[in-house]
């Protein structure tokens, strides 16, 4: 894709990113940060792409390191966010969970 198209996407994404979180309530600051943190774990895609075309061992090993790091970021990020948000469940569901 040409540079101008990429720039367009970049600029529009900035506005969307600001817009969607502009009304967040203070109690959700931490989960939101954690969720956003998990989303940039999608760098895993980039790690897979460069490793999948690695031509020598240095590139391969570095790529595998990047994949492991990115996967930790992605999976750990979503799981820890879910654990935080579990606490915000409606009261009823919570009681059931406790009685189990």
């Amino acid at each position, binding site marked *: 894709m040409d540079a101008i198209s990429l720039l367009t996407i970049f600029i529009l994404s900035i506005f*969307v990113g600001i817009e*969607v979180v502009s009304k967040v309530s203070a*109690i959700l600051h931490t989960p939101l*940060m954690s969720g956003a943190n998990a*989303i*940039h774990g*999608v760098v895993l895609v980039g790690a897979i792409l*460069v490793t999948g075309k690695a031509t020598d061992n240095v590139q391969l090993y570095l790529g595998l390191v990047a994949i492991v790091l990115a996967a930790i970021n992605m999976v750990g990020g979503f799981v820890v966010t879910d654990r935080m948000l579990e606490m915000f469940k409606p009261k009823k569901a919570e009681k059931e969970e406790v009685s189990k």
Partner: protein
Amino acid sequence: MTPTWVRVAELLAAVLFILALKGLSSPKTARRGNLLGAAGAAIATAVAFFYGQKFYGGPVQHLPEILIAIAIGSIIGWIAARRVQMTQMPQMVALFNGVGGGAAAVISVIEFLSVHSESAAILTATIFTVVVGSVSFTGSLLTFAKLQELMTSRPVVIPLGRFVTIGVAVATVVTAVALILNPTNSLLWLLLGLSLVLGILLVLPVGGADVPIVISLLNAFTGLSVAASGYVLNNVLLIVAGTLVGASGTLLTRMMAQAMGRPLTNTLFGAFKKRVASSAVSSEDRPVKSASPQDVAIMLAYARKVIIVPGYGLAVAQAQNTIRELVELLVAKGIEVDYAIHPVAGRMPGHMNVLLAEANVPYEQLKEMDEINPEFPGTDVALVVGANDVVNPAARDDKSAPIYGMPILNVDQAQQVVFLKRSMRPGFAGIENEVLFDPKTSLLFGDAKDSLTKVVGALKSL
């Protein structure tokens, strides 16, 4: 050519990420939002193997190794996220953020080594990713060390620190420019080293109470470096996801800094400013009034209105359930009880809400700072459990205090104040709290859970 269905799947993933952030902004939809984000990430990862001949120059190479690496990373991430105590969550997020930044930096290093792109724009984006990703990596590891108390949480100012930091920052920029003009491997390694050091130098002088803001900032940094790596790899999804996080993370950082009443520059560079040493008298020489659990129980039992100020000490002692029990006893006696939640109670904005919700504390009893502050003068007892900095009037009155300007809970305006504390040790920000020495303040020393259990016992036997 990348197949059309792959690009449609990427579009779907991008939309899911936007919906995820949107959902995470409201309590009702937050959990679903997170799951949407996870679904988007899963789709994006799955289609990464189908970019086709043009990208990979054939079938995907090293497929088994890639799958194993994904499995290893996923298992580590999963276990770490499941095992972590809720009190240690902030440093966990910092760690996850750091490895993400590290991954982005490594990707760009590989691209640099393998492609030798002639385009100045691509080179600039590559170098940007290396620098910002590395800063985020070491910076986040250091915030982890600070929060985990592997090192002091106080600001660390090395001699001539400001000049060392500026020097390294300038050297980084000069090396980056040189690298764009003359792309050689040795310059790349130099740049990588400088960036890693820069991340450490930037976070060292940040004081404990400001660390959450820095985590959020580094989170936004990682987002931007992911976006830049997307440009390097000509991948639209990475650009969109990285930019979304970069933009929303920047805004979130500003909101957090505002909640603490501290401009961002103050957070990052405050420790470099000369400080007037306030209150030269050391704490051991000054009288404080300590109380027994029975005294505290009596004070509470004969109050009409009690406000509980929970802090990190409560969380560390795992005393959330005991405090709920105490509050239930008081409410049963007809006493009006509220929890006053400071925006940064715990270690992060919103952290205390999570911790108390975990202990089934009714949501309606949690009052935010602006709502509860006018009620302190009409309150008989303010019970401060394991909090210190967020009730320190120095933030309101003492211009030389490092936390000056941070909004606080005005417990000093209550009729009586009871502190449950482990020791006279100052709070996370490392400064003395004058309320402790106020004649109307009583202190009950000990682990928050033990103390609360004793108070509950005393209350029951009254």
